[in-house]
């Protein structure tokens, strides 16, 4: 794939995000887009955001459940980048008008105390390098029509990243069994999705290890201070104006936000 093409696709996706409209998926016009090229487009998109003075605050993992991996026919999860303008205050407001067709997922976020450099990273090393875990809600908002895409499409689109809300309670990872964290995602006080954290690759630390190993192949590493969303524990739920969204997690606390006009 030519550099010009990468820039064109990245700009196309950035424009869709900025103008809050869904667009035809990239692979319709570029059927040759593969996973490797798609990450090259994502890198270009990230570079363009950084040029607009946005800063990377962390990363996110996607397709971390067996069901989603089977649905997309992949063996490995995917990743994207979180920027400073994606952060919402806990129990703050999400303006629906700034989104296209948002969905919410409950996740566990890892705050790293040390750098992690793959390959060969396992869950235990991730836990040893993790300073805190935090309850989180991720708002995903694919730039594609009807939230439908192939694997390269979603990778190019920064793994559908849109917003993230972190809870205010920090928990040391050695004080809790992170495999068995029960959680309830509720909307307007009604439980909508219920699951346990093993839904993420058997253990959320496995998702962080997978990320470190994927970055290691490119000579990059996870850095101390970064906050990483380990991937959805629950199914994604559509949200709308007026919704009060909350996740409660066993031993980790709660996190929430309200959707306004």
């Amino acid at each position: 794939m030519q550099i010009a093409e990468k820039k064109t696709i990245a700009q196309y996706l950035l424009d869709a995000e900025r103008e809050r409209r869904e667009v035809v998926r990239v692979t319709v016009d570029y059927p040759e887009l593969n996973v490797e090229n798609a990450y090259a487009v994502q890198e270009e998109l990230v570079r363009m955001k950084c040029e607009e003075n946005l800063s990377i605050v962390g990363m996110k993992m996607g397709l971390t459940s067996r069901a989603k991996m089977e649905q997309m026919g992949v063996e490995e999860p995917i990743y994207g980048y979180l920027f400073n303008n994606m952060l919402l205050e806990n129990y703050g407001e999400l303006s629906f008008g700034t989104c296209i067709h948002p969905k919410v997922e409950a996740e566990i976020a890892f705050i790293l105390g040390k750098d992690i450099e793959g390959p060969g990273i396992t869950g235990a090393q991730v836990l040893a390098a993790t300073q805190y875990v935090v309850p989180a809600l991720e708002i995903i908002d694919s730039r594609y029509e009807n939230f439908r895409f192939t694997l390269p499409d979603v990778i190019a689109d920064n793994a559908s990243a849109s917003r993230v809300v972190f809870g205010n309670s920090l928990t040391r990872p050695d004080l809790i069994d992170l495999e068995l964290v029960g959680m309830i995602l509720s909307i307007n006080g009604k439980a909508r999705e219920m699951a346990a954290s093993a839904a993420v690759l058997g253990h959320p630390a496995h998702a962080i290890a997978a990320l470190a190993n994927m970055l290691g192949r490119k000579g990059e590493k996870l850095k101390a201070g970064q906050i990483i969303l380990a991937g959805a524990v629950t199914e994604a739920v559509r949200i709308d104006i007026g919704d009060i969204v909350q996740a409660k997690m066993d031993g980790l606390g709660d996190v929430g936000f309200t959707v306004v006009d």
Partner: protein
Amino acid sequence: MNQQTVGILEQYAGELAQAERERTPIAALTERSSTLTVEEAYQIQLLGIQEKTKSGHRIVGKKIGLTSHAMQQLLGVDQPDYGHLLDGMAVENGSTITQDRILQAKVEGEIAFILKKDLQGPNVTLLDVLQATDYVLPAIEIVDSRIAGWKIKLPDTIADNASSGLYVLGGKPVRIEDIDLELAGMVLYRNGQVINTGVGAAALGHPATCVAWLANKLSEFSIALKSGEVILSGALSAAVPAESGDHFSVRIAHLGEVNVSFA
């Protein structure tokens, strides 16, 4: 209820017992008697249980079914149901179940309550249940159906002892005051792979709410939940079909693990 109806209910109870004995499923009762009511279905269940206790079986507890929103929607109902646990249904943790004990088994992970006080409805609340509970255990329930292809409507499963099969309890009792059952995570593994997950709240919002429902439901028949009884409070995730050679493991946060295999 007239003699004719009683005769039909006895006949259905006999057919279900025979289906279980001979491991040959029968057509849904509601296909033959479309007007079969929930009350009549519980009569059929009780007739079947009476036959079993007459032949030497002992009631050791109860199970609550249809406790998830998804299951209730599937059967088009707005409340759970219940069945009886008999002494022959208990399987030791870690053991292997032979095919001659099952018909079309599925596996569920849930929380078992063991009572230290009797609970007599009506008006039993969640708090009453917590106070009457001696301890809780992680459990695997092996549900089974004597109805061909699991093609059940609510009266079919009720008549069939709420599709009870076998159950396995974990070995480490935990005092209920030490855990938040609402948020206790549950993971069901098949052959070492996570097959699905859930949380205590998946059973009517809180597993103890299910036990309270049962105590209140049983009061309609003037029955109390008894001290020492095992109560399976309801599945925390979708039931998974068990194939020959499968190994299942359920882990529940703060409660430990329970295992079973199928020969």
